[in-house]
């Protein structure tokens, strides 16, 4: 019987297994995860979970799902090596053969060269989130290193729970990698209104037991220092196996690596942007699940349509839901519309649409981008009535 082995039991690995069954794949599916317990969702870890959410609500599916769909789980298990010549993976001395291998190893927190890193905590795994959750009682001083999605989502929750919060970002603006300058400015203002101190253009030079020292020399007293300065893709296994790696595990438009028996998806995969052809790597639920579905279709049915999905992202910060449709390059320009929507442009082409609490415009953008017809500026013209809402 044919066997698909999936390395990684996060959102992407799970979706690959579930989609394989949905597409009618009737071979064996084995999913290997390095964390304990059932596969779970990460996005709520920096949001609802910290505010009293349960572990059960994080589960992607109950145990019975994996039994019913004959998806074998090996949790708390590390893959030591991929033996491509013999099409096997090695886990703890055991060799497991595959007909097709899916690498869904995701990413891990970036730990920059800062003295005293051991005094900080990360927020990526359930284990880490649970420890932080337990610590967030009785009004503590929270320092957040990094003003990206995770750091700011966490900051908003910590403020809501009554803690004092300082965010230190090395770049001159928040979420600089993900959003336009006007959006960064609006979020900085929002967080300041929530009572969070936002420090920009001043990175952390050193962390110690009582807080951290900024590049400017200023010292921030903290009871908890959260390190949230981005992630690095888990590409080491692929590299060791001789697969092509460049920023992520390099895949083609069918999401196949340099070995035709191996696919890669999600945070760890560098794939050709369907719009520009450039190699990109996205850290998002959307990329992980859309990649997984395409790979599953290919394996189960031999489908050969290239990857075309429109990227989208979201971030919940207090009562603001930031939504981004599309993908802007770092030098793309920005135009703010009357209703608050920000359009990003590369030349005259709309590359991304950023909105806050505006699902209608967000979905219009996603649908428009998916249609393949270039979006026009006119599509986002708003009537005065809509501006008032």
């Amino acid at each position, binding site marked *: 019987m044919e066997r698909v082995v999936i390395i990684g039991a996060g959102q992407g690995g799970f979706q690959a297994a579930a989609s394989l069954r949905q597409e009618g794949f009737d071979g064996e599916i084995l999913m290997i995860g390095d964390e304990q317990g059932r596969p779970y969702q990460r996005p709520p870890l920096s949001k609802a979970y910290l505010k009293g959410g349960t572990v059960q609500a994080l589960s992607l*599916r109950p145990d019975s799902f994996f039994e019913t769909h004959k998806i074998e789980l090996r949790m708390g298990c590390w893959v030591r090596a991929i033996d491509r010549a013999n099409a096997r993976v090695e886990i703890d001395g055991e060799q497991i053969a595959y007909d097709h291998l899916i690498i869904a190893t995701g990413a891990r927190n970036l730990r920059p060269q800062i003295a005293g890193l051991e005094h900080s905590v990360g927020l990526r795994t359930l284990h880490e989130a649970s420890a932080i959750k337990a610590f967030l009682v009785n009004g503590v001083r929270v320092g957040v290193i990094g003003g990206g999605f995770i750091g700011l989502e966490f900051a908003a929750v910590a403020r809501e729970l009554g803690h004092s919060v300082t965010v230190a970002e090395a770049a001159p603006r928040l979420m600089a990698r993900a959003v336009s300058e006007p959006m960064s400015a609006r979020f900085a203002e929002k967080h300041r209104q929530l009572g969070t101190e936002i420090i920009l253009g001043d990175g952390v030079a050193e962390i110690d037991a009582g807080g951290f020292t900024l590049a400017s020399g200023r010292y921030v007293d903290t009871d908890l220092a959260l390190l949230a300065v981005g992630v690095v893709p888990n590409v080491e296994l692929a590299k060791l196996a001789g697969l092509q790696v460049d920023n992520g595990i390099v895949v083609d438009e069918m999401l196949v690596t340099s070995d035709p028996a191996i696919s890669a998806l999600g945070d760890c995969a560098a794939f050709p942007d369907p719009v520009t052809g450039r190699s990109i790597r996205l850290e998002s639920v959307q990329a992980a699940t859309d990649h997984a579905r395409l790979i599953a279709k290919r394996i189960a049915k031999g489908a050969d349509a290239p990857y075309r999905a429109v990227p989208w992202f*979201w971030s919940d910060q207090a009562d603001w839901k930031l939504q981004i449709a599309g993908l802007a390059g770092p030098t793309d320009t920005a135009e703010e519309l009357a209703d608050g929507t920000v359009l990003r442009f590369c030349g005259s082409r709309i590359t991304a649409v950023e909105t806050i*609490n*505006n*699902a209608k415009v967000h*979905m219009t953008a996603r*649908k428009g981008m998916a249609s393949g017809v270039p979006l026009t500026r006119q599509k986002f013209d708003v009537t005065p009535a809509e501006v008032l809402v």
Partner: protein
Amino acid sequence: MVSITFIQPDGAAQTVQATVGDSVMQTALNNNIEGIFAECGGAMMCATCHCYIDDEWAEKTGDKSDGEDDMLDCAETEVTDASRLTCQIKVTDALDGMVVRLPSELA
């Protein structure tokens, strides 16, 4: 506990026990209800937990969330006046006996 009955497009019914405070989406996932994919995990970023709620229950489920209709517009299944995203419906005692119909997949 609250009973909720999920009915598939082919008429197959499954009655499950729901926990007050969970979403209807979470209830469906916990009970392996076919047709609820819940890709975004209840963040209202997709429409893959779309269902139909009969009129008699619509009032008790409460109003739609802001933006729910906009997300429903993008559902890949047929949207009607009875359409809801089940991630936005919280299970309460008032929903005991509720019937939730699942959409047929569009070809």
